[in-house]
């Protein structure tokens, strides 16, 4: 079995600062980490490999320094790492990113074997779009299982996978055919600590590095900034709200006291609600 896990190197949001004057994010000197959601995807993939055999390839697109994240993924126990790096990829939105990653996964298929499963995290902590996983699936024509909490069964003979998908109001138990793409939810497992042998192997491993050309990109205009219809118009830090929380004496009837306080602060609310109620 071959599993590809897509990861992203992101700035450690716990240590990010917003420039007080320009309101831009100060990336300089901010340490980078593997997108935390991707670690749940990686662990899920490693568990399946340990159970069913095969290989896990981690893939990322990013600057040359993204090698650090790939090496870390190898320390956790991944078998192979591919870095997609080229200045043509810079400034990509999710449309351009999925184009590049899908192209690289096709190349991985021919070089190292077609993947049975592609994993991504639910979303990244810097972009928060949750579009890249589904985008890759669409481009590669893969079935997709999003927001997966647990992989409950995998049948390599029958080529099926069973997963628990969390949705609003409940859990869906889904079965689909392989190959497919899975986006993993947070807090569904815990990334392992690699053994000494893994750490040693990771420290010396040769990372596969592909430029756009190496990866087989045919249309460079679909990559990076040129291939990105999304434009960041403005970045700003939300202004602090002047409103302050107030302590309400609850007394005998706390619900009434609370409602009174809300209506006092939002005078338009009471007549609106009353009008709505009359409608029923």
């Amino acid at each position: 079995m071959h599993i590809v896990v897509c990861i992203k190197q992101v700035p450690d949001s716990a240590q990010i600062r917003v420039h007080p004057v320009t309101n831009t994010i100060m990336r300089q000197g901010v340490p980078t980490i593997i997108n935390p959601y991707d670690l749940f995807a990686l662990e899920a993939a490693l568990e399946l490999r340990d159970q069913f055999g095969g290989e896990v390839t981690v893939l990322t697109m990013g600057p040359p320094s993204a090698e650090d994240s790939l090496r870390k993924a190898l320390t956790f126990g991944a078998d192979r790492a591919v870095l997609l790096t080229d200045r043509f990829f810079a400034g990509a939105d999710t449309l351009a990113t999925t184009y590049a990653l899908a192209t690289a996964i096709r190349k991985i298929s021919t070089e190292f074997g077609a993947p049975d499963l592609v994993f991504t995290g639910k979303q990244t902590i810097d972009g928060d779009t949750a579009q890249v996983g589904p985008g890759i699936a669409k481009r590669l024509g893969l079935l997709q299982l999003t927001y997966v909490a647990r992989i409950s069964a995998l049948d390599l003979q029958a080529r099926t996978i069973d997963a628990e998908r969390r949705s609003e109001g409940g859990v869906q138990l889904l079965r689909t055919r392989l190959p497919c793409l899975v986006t993993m939810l947070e807090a569904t497992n815990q990334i392992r600590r690699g053994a000494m042998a893994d750490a040693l192997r990771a420290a010396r491993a040769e990372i596969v590095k592909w430029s756009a050309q190496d990866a087989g990109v045919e249309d460079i205009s679909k990559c990076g900034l040129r291939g990105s219809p999304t434009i960041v118009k403005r970045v700003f830090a939300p202004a602090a709200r002047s409103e302050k929380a107030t302590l309400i004496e609850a007394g005998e009837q706390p619900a009434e006291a609370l409602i009174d306080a809300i209506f006092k602060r939002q005078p338009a609310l009471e007549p609106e609600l009353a009008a709505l109620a009359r409608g029923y």
Partner: protein
Amino acid sequence: MIEEKFDAIVVGAGMAGNAAALTLAQRGLKVLQLERGEYSGSKNVQGAILYADMLEKLIPDFREDAPLERHLVEQRFWMMDDRSHTGLHYRSDDFNEEKPNRYTIIRAQFDKWFSQKVREAGATVLCETTVTELAQDAYGKVIGVRTDRADGEIHADVVVLAEGVNGLLGTRAGLRKRPTPDKVALAVKEMHFLPRETIEARFNLKGDEGMVIEAAGTISRGMTGMGFIYANKECISLGIGCLVADFQRTGETPYGLLDRFKRHPSVAPLIEGSEVKEYAAHLIPEGGFKAIPQLYGEGWVVVGDAAQLNNAIHREGSNLAMTSGRIAAEAIFQVKSRKDPMTAENLALYKKMLDESFVIKDLKKYKDMPALMHTQSQNFFLTYPELVSKAMQNFLRVDGTPKVEKEKTTFKSFIKARSWSGLFGDAFRLARAWR
């Protein structure tokens, strides 16, 4: 247990460990370096000042890409009482040379760069891997290390202990004793962020010029200690440290000292309006020559802070760390090239080479200084600073008192506080310790 065997395992990736691993790898040895932090420098909280000369011996063209903050053009020594400071400042445009001699650095960034050089030289560097104990054979010879990773025992011909001031591995294996509270200082440090222009205006700097303030006096409440202020590009490192034994004796708290230092009327305006991003504390070896433990044994050598190598007078901690790491590596390389085993007898070469270097010569020169400063801490850190401050004020105030009388008052205040014999005794002891 890992089957593969290394020529050398270096424990720790600070200055001493990186210098040792780099030198060993440059000489073609098969080196494994183990670091418990997420990356080299991630656990480091030093000030910090870098001396170029020692680094040049390892990486001649380091100025090209090392993350340096500012080169020092000015040094200020302050003797402080509660409301004043008497300063000796030295500033010279000579320090604006093509290859400056001293820099402020931020170790978390610098060590990361240094570690990259170690990797490029061919060493295998594993981070987030803690060495839990030394692996020893039936005769006590060190044959490798055990780590906190699964199947984590790994062997080498020699282990270089660059594990830092606490030296837990060496003490656990019975190679040396833990440093006692009178031999280590506890220093606390904060990083104060300010716009670049503000720092340059407040400290009279332009471009990448930097300056350092070192302060002693009543800020340490009669304990043996010092405060420091270093100007980096966009932040100020500010801290204070005192002997652990003094903290024990007086019950003073490090954060209390730091707070008082920051509120001092000479210091407060320098950091006004800054954003504090980091608060850190660390031990510093202060015992000097007399505290140096056994430096080598069967299958092991110890370098840097773990070997208590720090010249407190000249603040050469990382400098001695780099040098001892390099010298240990060179000694190991010589033993290895002769195809000799890494026995204590052969590794004694490291001590011999270190004795001949400036490291031990300098520490020997100041061998009595730590004890003098410690036993006389009340005089050197309380009485004298207050007397000097009073004398200066007396000298500068113009108030109609005849100058002859002013001088008399100043002399009398010194005699009253310390007596003639006390004054001569202190001067004599200080001169002898300096000799």
